């Protein structure tokens, strides 16, 4: 077994004066799907943003190694070029910037960093159209501005769609299931399942178990107080669903 794709050790991080992550450890191998669950304020989203390189968070201790590289020293765009993708919980609107234009620029920036030629326009469009179809998006989407006027569900679908086009190796999905009705949830899950593969790892950050009915995780981790409190398989998620997060907090209190 080669080294883990993503290895997080003793990660401590703060935003302004608040310490949010307090010694988090996590290993993710290629081909795996991990679910990170936890109550509000446990540090789930913070972890997702730190992996993507968001500037507001200050890492005070610990390390993150991605494919043998120190991930924390890379700029956000360099992480993207190296195959890290974050599906945002609240994708931002960019008025006047065409969806497909952004996506093509993103893909070409990555290809350039890899020393590849720009993508062929015709190939790109046919790939885009095929993936849009899979995500149940119609052609009008091609000419709309990035996330502008999108419904909550459309924004989430767009994130998964972008992920499919950019084909990252490490997909981090920050509460992609929140605010989705059951039909939209199924579409999003279909997209994510489509992405599963031996060379790719997927980290699902979620509050609820229901996404995991549609995407079978290999590992489930429960976060509390900025650390991984408990790890297990799919059954852990079901246990959480049944007992609620209070159960976690009690366990946390008893081990503290």
């Amino acid at each position: 077994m080669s080294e883990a794709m993503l290895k997080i050790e003793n990660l401590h991080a703060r935003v302004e004066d608040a310490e949010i992550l307090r010694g988090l450890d996590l290993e993710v191998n290629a081909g795996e799907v991990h679910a990170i669950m936890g109550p509000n304020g446990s540090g789930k989203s913070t972890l997702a943003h730190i992996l993507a390189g968001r500037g507001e968070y200050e890492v005070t201790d610990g390390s993150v190694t991605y494919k043998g590289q120190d991930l924390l020293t890379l700029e956000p765009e360099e992480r993207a070029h190296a195959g890290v993708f974050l599906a945002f919980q609240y994708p931002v609107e960019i008025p006047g910037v065409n969806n497909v234009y952004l996506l093509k620029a993103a893909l070409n920036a990555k290809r350039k960093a890899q020393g590849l030629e720009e993508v062929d326009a015709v190939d790109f469009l046919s790939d885009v159209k095929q993936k849009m179809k899979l995500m149940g998006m119609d052609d009008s989407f091609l000419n709309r501005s990035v996330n502008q006027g999108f419904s909550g569900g459309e924004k989430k679908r767009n994130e998964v769609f972008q992920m499919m086009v950019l084909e990252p190796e490490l997909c981090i999905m920050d509460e992609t299931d929140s605010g989705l009705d059951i039909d939209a949830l199924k579409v999003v899950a279909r997209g994510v399942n489509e992405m599963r593969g031996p060379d790719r790892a997927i980290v699902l950050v979620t509050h609820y178990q229901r996404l995991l009915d549609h995407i079978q995780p290999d590992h489930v981790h429960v976060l509390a107080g900025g650390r991984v409190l408990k790890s297990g398989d799919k059954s852990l998620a079901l246990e959480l669903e049944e007992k609620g997060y209070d159960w976690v907090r009690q366990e946390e209190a008893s081990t503290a």
Partner: protein
Amino acid sequence: MAANVEEFVTRRYKQGFVTDIETDTVPPGLNEDVIRLISGKKGEPEWMLEWRLEAYRHWLTMTEPHWAHVHYPPIDFQAISYYSAPKSKEQQEAEAPKSLDEVDPKLLETYDKLGIPLHEQEKLAGVAVDAVFDSVSVATTFKQKLHDAGVIFCSMSEALREYPELVRKYIGSVVPHSDNFYACMNSAVFSDGSFVFVPEGVTCPMELSTYFRINEAKTGQFERTLIVAEPGAYVSYLEGCTAPMRDENQLHAAVVELVALEDATIKYSTVQNWYPGDEEGRGGIYNFVTKRGDARGDRSKITWTQVETGSAITMKYPSCVLTGDGSVGEFYSVAVTSNYQQADTGTKMTHIGRNTRSTVVSKGISAMQGQNSYRGLIKVLPSAEGARNYTQCDSMLIGDRCGAHTFPYIEVKHPGAVVEHEASTSKVSDEQLFYCRQRGISEEDAVNMIVNGFCKDVFRELPMEFAVEAQALLGVTLEGAVG
């Protein structure tokens, strides 16, 4: 007061003017003799000289305007030289850089970023280029094609010699010589400019560009342009160039007049990229231009589209007088101020005819310490039954040291008029930048993309090639504005 100024002017004249009369550049200062000299050198008709003199006498009674939201040290109008004869070819060659090696590398870097071909770079930088690369041959074919269509496109000086009656009929009919301080000064001393005449029913077969006009360089600081479209005619005119040109004049006070008769359309597009001064705010051009179009005929249409990224100080309000019934005026503008640039710009739409319509879309972008003001007047006269206006005025801020200001004026004298004004101010947010960077796009490219998205409504109005260049230009202008 006026007498004192005149006295002062005369004194300057006595001090050293006469002995220099044979030289190519008159000594600094402005007086009637300087104006006579300008007119004489150009071989103008007598009426033109009289018109200039009238303008000058009126100018003496005027005071410099200070209402704009811009700040600059006082201009000494007597320290400016108002006439510089076109230099001979030998002189030009002697002064010009011999090759691109002698040109400021920073300028060349900008050309490269704008994707300007090498031989054009040489032309723009003023390199004494080989005749093969000169645009003369291009311009000649161009002229022939226009001639066949009956379109007149020449310098103002040439027009005054070849078509004096046409010029006389229209010059000053949109911007009278007494209009405002700078327009009045221009009327007295204007150096050269363009004249366009499109006869009845003719659609001009190509976009007219100042770039193609022979001897376009060195038209000087007081340009005067007149475009006339006869009934049913159509013309699209492109002014300027995305590349920064060499320019030694600090004060530019141009006048542009457009006349559209029945069912005629004039589209006037500008890309202005004059020297904005350095990072510390030193130097840079003052651009105080008066641009106005008269949609004189019924159902005529005038469209101003501008992308302004240059100049240190800009005061500019391309306007439309909607005289004809059913006439249409449009103004689409992108104005960028970065470093210490200041811009006070906008438009005036004056509705006179019935069922006149106007659209104003203004996008102001401020970065670094730039100050950007939109100033617009929508005026509906009692005669303008059924007038409609829509104004959209958006500001974008990059960083936290710049400023955006909006000064809209609305004067409605007809109860049935519909005037809409929408305004917004936004910031290039950290969230937007992070989103783009997470997708792999560099910060600089992300800013470009977001700003270009913001300006899309205006770029759409530009002729295709110009639009592409304008986007690249915006990128160069905002370089280093973030991070």
